[in-house]
Structures are given as C-alpha cells and as structure tokens.
C-alpha cells in the first residue's frame, strides 16, 4: 500500500495520493486524472465539512459529489469481494484511511461530540439497530436524472468491485420495492424532494436515516428558487436532526453569482434554544427563545496555485453546531462561442415568432451534427417546429419535445437523440436540466434568454466536454429582444449571473411539512419550531406564524373554532402533537408535493359526424391522445378554431368530458396564433443591463444597424431614459390616447402595474379601455386625452405612479383578481386545505364544481387575517403578480419619471403598441364583458 509518495506535493496531489489504490487504478485504467475539485471535495469530506461545488457542465460534478461516499464505503469493504458484505463491515465512519471503526464506537463518538439539543423525541431504536440505514442520499429535481445518475454510478462501482447497493426511489417505484427499501435500505438512495418528504414522514424514518452520512443535492441552483426548495430545506432540517452532526452535505450547482446563499441553504442555520424542550408551547410564546445563528460570512481562504479557488465559509462557531459549508469553485471551461444572430431580414419591431430568422436557423441545423433549438413556451415550440419543416428541403430529421406532448412520444424523441438519429430538436425548458441526450454540438436559443443563468444552462447542453467551447446562437425575435440578447451575451462573457433571490419559506409548504412530521412521530411544537428555523428559508419564521400553521393543520385555524371535534392532529397530555387517525397519514401521502400543474386537458384526435353549421356536431369517441394543453388555452377556443399542436394543424371541436376533442384541419395556417410571449419574466439583473445599454449610445456599436437606428430615432423624436429613470410617453393615435411606460421589470410586474394604472385612470375619468404589457414596458389606451389632463394639472404623473397604488388600489383589485384566486388555490392545495385531485377521483362529465374561488371569497370577507390568506399574499408578492418587483421599481423611479407629451407615436412605443392584437388585452374579466354580451343579445333581437 503506497499511500504516500515522498517529495513536495501540492495539496491536490497529496489528496490524489489519498485515493485508495483501487480508485487510483481505476482512474489510471481509464486514462483519467481526478480533477482538483473532485479531490478537494474528498478532502473536505474527510474533515467532516459540507461543501458547495460550483462547476460548469462537463466538469465531472456528479463524480465529485459521490467520490467521498464511494471511497468511504470502499475502505470498509474487502478488496476483492463484489458481493454485498454486511453493512457494519463496509461502513468506514469518519476514520479515514484507517480500518473503519465498528458501528458502536462510531455511535459513541457521535453522541460524545454532539453539542446539539437532544433529539425531538427519545430515539425509539436501541443502539446497533441503526445499521439498517442509508449511507448517502442523492436528491435531484428530476426523476429521470436520478435514474440516469444511478445507472452511471453502477459502472465505477462494478468495475472497482465495491459491491454497493444503489437504488432509486421515485413515484414509479413498486410497493414491493418501497417496502424493501425501508426494511433493507440501500447504501446509496437516489430520489426527488417529494419522495424525501414521504420518507421522513415514514414511521421508520429514524432508523432509515439514523446512520446517514452524506447528502448530495444535484442542480441545487434550480431547486432552491421554488416552493420545492422550501420543502427540501425542511426535509434537510429533519435529516440533520435525525442523523446528527456526522452528516455532511454536498451541493452541486451551476455557476451562480452569489453562491453564499446556496451554501447557507445547504447547511442551514443552527438555532440553539435557550428554553428547555418540552416546556409548554403556550408558556414560551417564542419570547424566551434566543436565536443564535452562525453568521456564516464568506471568507476567502488561501488558494494554492493550480488548485480550484476555494472560498471558505468560515462561520464564527459560537452557537453554531452546523459547520459552515465550504464553497469550491471549479475552473470555468473553455469560454462559449456565442453569437447573436443578425439575420438577413430586418429584425421586426415586435412579435415573438422569429419567423424572419428561420432560414438561418435551418441552415445552422444543416451545418451541425445535432442542434437543440430552445424556445420559451410550448406553443412557440409548435410554431418553430412547423416553420422549420416548412423549409426542410433536405428532409432533416427534426423533432419536437415539450412538456405537454404525450410521455411516450417524448421518450421516443429522447431515445432517437441519444442514438444520434436526430439533427435537430425543438424544445422548451423541459430539456434545460438533466440528462445528456446524445452529442449536441449547437444550441440555438430563440427569443430572449430572460436570464443569464438560464442561458448558461442551455448553452451547457451543447458539448459536455469541458475543454471544448460550447457553441450557441441567440436568435432575438424583435428589437427589444436584441437588446436583451446583447445584455445576456455580455453577462455570459463576464460570467456574471443572475442571483436566485433567497426565498422566504412559504407557509403553505410548512403546513404540509408539519402534518408530515406528525405522521412520522409525535412532535413537540417548540422543538419542531427550532428545527424548522434551522432551514435557511424559515430562519426568520416567527413563533406566532408557526403556531398558526400548527393550528391550521390541526383544525383549520379559524377564529370560529368549528372543527375542534374533527382535529387532524391533537396535542396529548404529554405535550406532544400526534395524528388522530390513520386516514390522515394516508391523505398526507396522497397529497405531498408542491408542484401544482396548471390544469391540463388531454387532447384527443377524433372524427366528427353530422356536422351542421353552427353546431358542434358529434365527435366520435376513441381516437388517439396527442398530449395535453393548459385548460386556460382550451377555454379560449371556440369550435372551429384551428391551432398547431404536436406539429399538426388541428381543429378544435369542443371539450367533452374533460378532454379537448380535435380533428385534423385542412387549413395550412392556424387561426389561433401561437402565443409566444415569455413564460419567464426578464430577470432584474438583465433588465438593469438593458436599461444601461439604452442610456449609453456608445454601446450601440455592437447592435445591428436597424436596432441602433431605432434607438437613435427615439433619441430624436422623444427621449432616451437614463438608466435609473422611467420614461412615460403620452400621445394620440387614430382617436385613441396612449400612455406608454418602459420600466423593464418583466411581464408579470407590468401586468400588475397595468391593472392598477387602469384603475387610477378610470378614477380620473380618463376612460381607459385596455392595456398590453410585455417584458419591457406597457401601453394603456383610452378615450380621453391623457397629455391634456397632465398639462392641465388634472393628472399628476408622479401621483399616478405613486407607491401608494400598492395600498388601497391593490387591495381592491386583489378582491376580484383572477390571478390572486389562482394563487390562493395553489396555497389551498399545497397546505392540504383541499385535496389535489388524483387519478381515479376526477369527476367526469357532469360536474358541479365547488371552486376554491368561492372559498377565497368567503375567507377574505370573514377572516382576512387567516394564515392561508397570509400565505397567498406572500405568494402574490413574488409570483404571478410580482408585487415585490413592482414595489422596488416604484421606489426606484420616485422623482425620476421623465414624461414626454408627444404629437406622434415614438419609435420605442411602436414596439409595444404593436403587441396589441398579438398579446392578450388585459383588464380583469368583469361585468364589462357581460354588458357586451348582453348588448349582442340586444342586437340579435333587433336585427
């Protein structure tokens, strides 16, 4: 055993020598060198540190994440045996390089070194039983990724004869497999956040995870930005409680601007309660709880030359029991070759289709082996796919891949891609993350990228070899998008990234978790409160909110105590909360998770019989299912409308028993245009760059002539806003009076702003008729002269955009806002107030739906301070209504509004008012629509 070579070695080389011989041999046999960051992770694991690895695609992140586990498990394993030895022999524990200590010694050590408060409840198992435990848990946002990683791990494990059991647990796992995994846990389990939630809610959770040593979190940057991230953080907090301080975490992330937030998420913040657990919850009221957290400030450690840069998160250790996570940054790969496509045809002022550039996109596909063409929405994918086939003279195999296609169809495309049979795939964010499908050598991004990180992720799909540059084309569809693409390009060149906003943990997710914890074992409210606050998103959770959530889980938490008798969880004389019956746990299992799919309807192809004019005719039953569309899209169709789906033009016949019935249309051009606006709003970071670019004419040289000329004409005929200013233009055109503003804050914030401005203009009797919003600005139009109202002193632009619109105006609007109702519905489902529909329970045919809208109306009127209303409001601030961003913007522009009353349309505004007719015109669905419908009846009667 030549463990150490002599001579001066860098730290990394020393670490390489610490690889057990069979690992070194295995690397050597493959002609590979362990990468410095892989060894760095090994070193950190040896010292019991958690780590965040920030690395570009192709840097061997997965192996880096698992290497410490494999080494640790291998060191306990007999060298030759490929069969499964008993777990106790395999487990090395923390004694690296030495024969693994026995399990008992390890447990002693753990207890001795633990300065954590005692576990939530007395451990049920006796010492020694913990052998039946998972060693390493891997969590991925995608089921398919977990399965793929498991497969990839098998190779080194088999070749080195490590004899480890590696299993996946996904929603598809059979009941038999699930039971077996609890009874005989594998060494490494690969799963998803939802499955983790189910596992920690299991009665056997403590024995299953009692000996857990390591958690590997893949694509962490993608996980933490949503409610799924909240759920996962709560799960990790529980695992830390169960497994104790020996547990280390590894986060794997793509490049992000501020990895510190991710590092904090990884280990959480420790809270040492001053109150003794078990003290009555009522008595404490949170006042006696002192919060002592790791301050977790980043500090850059000395970086030895040639090793990955290592920023160490050295927390001040007082009060912290979680060692802070180290941040390991792998060197970037070869810089990507990025080009913004300047098509021969002039770039349109508005629109999203990028039709003008299809010939160039097609040509690019022809010149490469395999091209991924990314677009932002499913319907846009349909459109691009159709356009490419229209000009596909060479009959290149080009396929379509998006989330609403039938799963079997998607699997076929993926398989064909993996086999290298496809030249192009038009896809949506479904292929942003995850598995490498085949040898992609070009990525085309149609439309604006919306965020620098998303763009990086997509570019990374081309070429998974680190040392070769990825190639990508950006194809802006209009002039604003050109600016955005340029901004993204510069951002990527500087490796500047969007920073995922740290989340404030959602209360509806917490409610789900609290019920899950009661299903696992009786809990003490104070101890659980401390555990929850150790999860980064919940670090600032107040005791009052926590208590309200527990109360909500128990009986609905209403001021009118109507449901005491039917409580789901109840506090016993011992002070512990437990579930009241087995049914509750069963319901919990059926409803776990935070992903509320938009209500989707199946699209079924049929034939129509007996068509009469004006009547839907009889659609034959049966027929093939083509996929699914969002319910709201189907709602907008009337019989006879044609639209593109699955690459074909279809005729909408009607919705029958919750299915969209369609027939093949003969028309080549669909009547209903593919809505192709962005699904993701423009990131704050890119928006700031776009504003800066507009404000600085010296930066226009990189822009195509027509775009630079467009900005120059704007400067001429109106004004260009400074980078922190808001330009508002008013003018008349064809009898309509327009107000156009350019906040560059993303479509969602603009929609909310548009709703509120419309209300205010209505109150000012300026008769607004409607508005459109895109990512860059919004236009409101109406019947009264807005310029005259401003010059006549009847309307103040500063007052119109005053932050007080987020007060009463917002409140009034929220009362009836469909977006707010949808937000509430999501909270109601996630929190368990109402049950998710699950297969077999969907009502078919005739249904009297009791919608959550009715529940919202009643709750808002009778208990507006209820915890679920609070949850919905918090969601509205960041979600569909993006109120937080709007509020930041209103603060930013105070005193910096530049108003231009123009005698004509301005060049910039053209790009926004051209959206009218293309984008949905907003205004809440309201009585005005009913009045219009009534007027039509009147016309019918009179005609």
């Amino acid at each position, binding site marked *: 055993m030549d463990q150490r070579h002599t001579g001066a070695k860098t730290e990394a080389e020393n670490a390489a020598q610490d690889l057990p011989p069979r690992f070194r041999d295995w690397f050597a046999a493959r002609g590979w060198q362990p990468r410095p960051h892989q060894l760095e992770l090994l070193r950190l694991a040896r010292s019991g540190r958690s780590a965040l690895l920030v690395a570009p695609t192709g840097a061997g992140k997965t192996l880096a994440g698992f290497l410490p586990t494999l080494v640790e498990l291998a060191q306990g394993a007999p060298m030759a045996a490929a069969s499964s030895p008993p777990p106790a022999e395999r487990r090395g524990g923390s004694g690296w390089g030495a024969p693994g200590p026995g399990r008992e010694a390890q447990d002693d050590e753990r207890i001795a070194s633990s300065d954590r408060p005692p576990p939530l409840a007395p451990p049920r198992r006796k010492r020694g039983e913990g052998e039946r435990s998972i060693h390493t848990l891997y969590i991925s946002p995608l089921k398919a990724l977990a399965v793929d990683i498991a497969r990839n791990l098998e190779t080194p494990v088999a070749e080195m004869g490590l004899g480890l059991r590696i299993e996946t647990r996904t929603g598809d796992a059979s009941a038999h497999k699930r039971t077996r995994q609890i009874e005989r846990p594998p060494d490494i389990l690969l799963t998803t956040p939802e499955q983790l939630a189910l596992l920690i809610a299991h009665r056997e959770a403590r024995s299953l995870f009692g000996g857990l040593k390591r958690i590997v979190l893949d694509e962490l940057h993608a996980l933490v930005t949503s409610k799924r991230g909240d759920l996962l953080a709560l799960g990790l907090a529980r695992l830390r409680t169960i497994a104790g301080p020996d547990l280390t975490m590894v986060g794997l992330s793509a490049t992000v601007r501020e990895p510190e937030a991710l590092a904090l998420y990884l280990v959480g913040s420790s809270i040492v309660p001053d109150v003794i657990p078990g003290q009555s919850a009522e008595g404490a009221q949170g006042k006696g709880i002192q919060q002592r957290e790791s301050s977790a400030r980043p500090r850059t450690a000395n970086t030895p030359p040639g090793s990955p840069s290592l920023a160490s998160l050295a927390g001040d250790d007082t009060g912290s029991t979680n060692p802070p996570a180290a941040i390991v940054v792998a060197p970037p790969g070869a810089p990507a070759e990025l080009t913004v496509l300047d098509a021969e045809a002039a770039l349109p002022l508005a629109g999203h289709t990028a039709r003008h550039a299809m010939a160039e996109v097609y040509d690019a596909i022809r010149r490469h082996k395999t091209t991924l063409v990314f677009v932002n929405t499913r319907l846009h994918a349909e459109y691009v796919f159709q356009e490419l086939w229209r000009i596909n003279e060479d009959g290149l195999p080009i396929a379509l891949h998006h989330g609403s296609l039938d799963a079997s169809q998607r699997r076929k495309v993926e398989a064909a891609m993996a086999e290298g049979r496809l030249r192009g795939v038009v896809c949506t964010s479904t292929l942003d993350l995850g598995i490498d499908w085949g040898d992609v050598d070009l990525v085309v991004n149609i439309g604006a990228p919306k965020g620098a990180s998303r763009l990086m992720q997509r570019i990374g799909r081309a070429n998974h070899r680190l040392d070769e540059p990825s190639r990508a084309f950006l194809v802006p569809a209009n002039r604003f998008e050109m600016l955005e693409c340029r901004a993204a390009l510069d951002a990527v060149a500087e490796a500047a990234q969007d920073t995922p906003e740290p989340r404030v943990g959602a209360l509806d997710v917490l409610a789900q978790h609290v019920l899950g914890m009661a299903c696992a074992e009786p809990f003490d409210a104070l101890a659980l409160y401390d555990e929850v606050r150790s999860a980064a998103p919940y670090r600032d959770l107040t005791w009052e909110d926590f208590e309200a959530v527990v109360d909500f889980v128990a009986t609905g938490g*209403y001021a009118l105590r109507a449901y005491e008798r039917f409580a789901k969880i109840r506090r016993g004389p011992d002070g512990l909360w437990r579930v009241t019956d087995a049914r509750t746990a069963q319901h919990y299992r059926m409803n776990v998770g935070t992903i509320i799919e938009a209500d989707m309807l199946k699209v079924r192809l049929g034939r129509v019989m007996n068509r009469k004019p004006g009547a839907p005719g009889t659609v034959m039953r049966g027929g093939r299912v083509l996929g699914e569309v969002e319910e709201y899209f189907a709602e*907008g169709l009337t019989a006879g409308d044609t639209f593109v789906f699955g690459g074909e033009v279809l005729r909408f016949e009607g919705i029958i028993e919750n299915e969209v019935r369609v027939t093949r249309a003969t028309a080549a051009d669909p009547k209903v245009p593919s809505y192709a606006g962005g699904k993701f709003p423009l990131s704050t970071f890119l928006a700031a760059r776009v504003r800066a670019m507009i404000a600085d004419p010296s930066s226009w040289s990189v822009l195509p002539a027509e775009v630079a000329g467009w900005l120059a004409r704007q400067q001429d005929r109106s004004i260009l806003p400074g980078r922190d200013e808001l330009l508002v233009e008013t003018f008349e055109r064809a009898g309509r009076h327009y107000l156009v503003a350019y906040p560059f804050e993303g479509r969602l914030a603009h929609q909310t702003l548009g709703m509120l401005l419309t209300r205010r203009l209505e109150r000012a009797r300026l008769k607004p008729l409607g508005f459109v919003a895109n990512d860059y600005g919004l236009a409101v139009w109406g019947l009264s002269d807005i310029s005259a109202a401003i010059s006549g002193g009847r309307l103040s632009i500063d007052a119109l955009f005053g932050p007080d619109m987020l007060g009463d105006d917002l409140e009034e609007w929220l009362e009836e806002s469909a977006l707010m109702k949808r937000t509430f519905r999501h909270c109601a489902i996630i929190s368990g107030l109402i049950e998710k529909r699950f297969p077999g329970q969907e009502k078919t045919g005739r249904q009297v739906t009791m919608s959550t809208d009715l529940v919202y109306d009643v709750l808002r009127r009778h208990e507006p301070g209820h915890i679920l209303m609070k949850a919905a409001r918090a969601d509205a601030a960041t979600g569909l209504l993006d109120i937080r961003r709007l509020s930041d913007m209103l603060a930013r522009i105070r005193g910096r509004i530049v108003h231009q009353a123009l005698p004509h349309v301005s060049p910039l505004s053209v790009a926004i008012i051209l959206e009218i007719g293309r984008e949905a015109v907003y205004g809440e669905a309201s009585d005005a629509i009913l009045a219009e419908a009534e007027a039509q009846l009147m016309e019918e009667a009179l005609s």
Partner: protein
Amino acid sequence: MNVAADMPVHPVLLGGLAAMLDASGALFLPDEGTLVVADLHLEKGSAYGTRGQFLPPYDSRATLERLAEVIDRLRPRRVVALGDSFHDRQAQGRLGHADALLLQTLMAGRDWLWITGNHDPLPPADIGGDVAAMATIGALRLVHEPTLMDGPEAAGHLHPAARVHLRGRSVRRRCFATCGTRMILPAFGAYAGGLNLRDRVFSPYFPAFLTAYMLGQARVYAVGRRMLLPD
C-alpha cells in the same frame, strides 16, 4: 314597471307573472310580495370539515348575510326556499349560534316556506316556517327539482352557471336560466358550485328558447343561448 338598468333587479315575465331577477340570485315576485331563493346549502363547509377538509366555516354566515341584505332591500311578505336549504340532515346541529339567530331574525314577521330537496328531505323540525314538497303561486309551480310538467315553473337543484368569452376574456357566473315559462334559479349558497348551462342535463327543460341572466356585481345581464360556452 320602470326599472333603471343599473338597479339590482331586472324585470321579466315568468308564465305571465311579473318577476324580478336580483343580482344576488334571488327571484322576487312583487305582486305577491314573495322572495324565492334556491339551494342555500347551509353548513356545506362544515360537512367537508367532518371529513378533515377544514374549509372556512363562514359559508352559512355569508349566505345568510346576503339573504338578509336582499330581504332588507325588497321587504318580502313571504320567503320560499326552493330546497337543499340545508346541506345535510345534521346541518342544523352544526349551524353556529349567531347564524341560527340570524336565520330566526330573517324568518320573524313573515311567512316562510321550506320546499324540500334531495339534501334536506326533512327540514329541521323545530326551525319554524312551513314545509312542502311543492307550492303554487297563481299558476306558478315552485319545486326543488325541475319537472317536465306543463305550466310555469320555478325550480332550483341544478345550480345553473353560464360562461361567455369575449375579446380574450372569459367570464363564468351563476345565472338564472329561463325560457319565459320555466325558470331554474342559481344556487344562493356561498359554497354551492355551478353547473354549466351547456350541460346536456339542461336541454330537456329548454328545448326551444333559453336566456341566461348572469349574475353581475350590481345587476344581472341577459345573455343569449348562442353566446354561451361550455366550460
């Protein structure tokens, strides 16, 4: 009768009888001083509560307060509840004290008729008021489930709702459905859902002619059959 368009009541003729459609979902017969409401479904929320779905327990309050507002405005001599007034047989027991009191206040000083429905074949015995399976006012038949019998009829049970779609916006509201002879009232209860008028269950009742009076914020809106869309 001369009623301005923005009044909450909308005059129609029902089987020759003057009738007013209120934006709350109530039908008022001014000549008879009679207010008709259908499908209150009191304590529907708590019915879910007993099964572990803790819906806000304020639906009875919301329903009764809305009813109180209509009664206060129209001052009927008589109120007819067209069945399914109570969500189930135990509903009265779950009705909160304040809500029960409010109901008693509404019933005091006027005739009150409970038509029986499938949810409440036997309205609470001690609740007061009269109970019947069917009633007639002049030629107008008042029943819970609509029938195919001849003659004018007002019924509930089916919870009609209508959807229209204009300029990219879709509005779905509860509605009165009527052909001028028969009428199906919208459900009045706060948690009572709606069934789309395009559902085939409605077709036997309106073979020739149908107008939906959709409930707006301040008044009802008459919408023709051709404008109505399925969900």
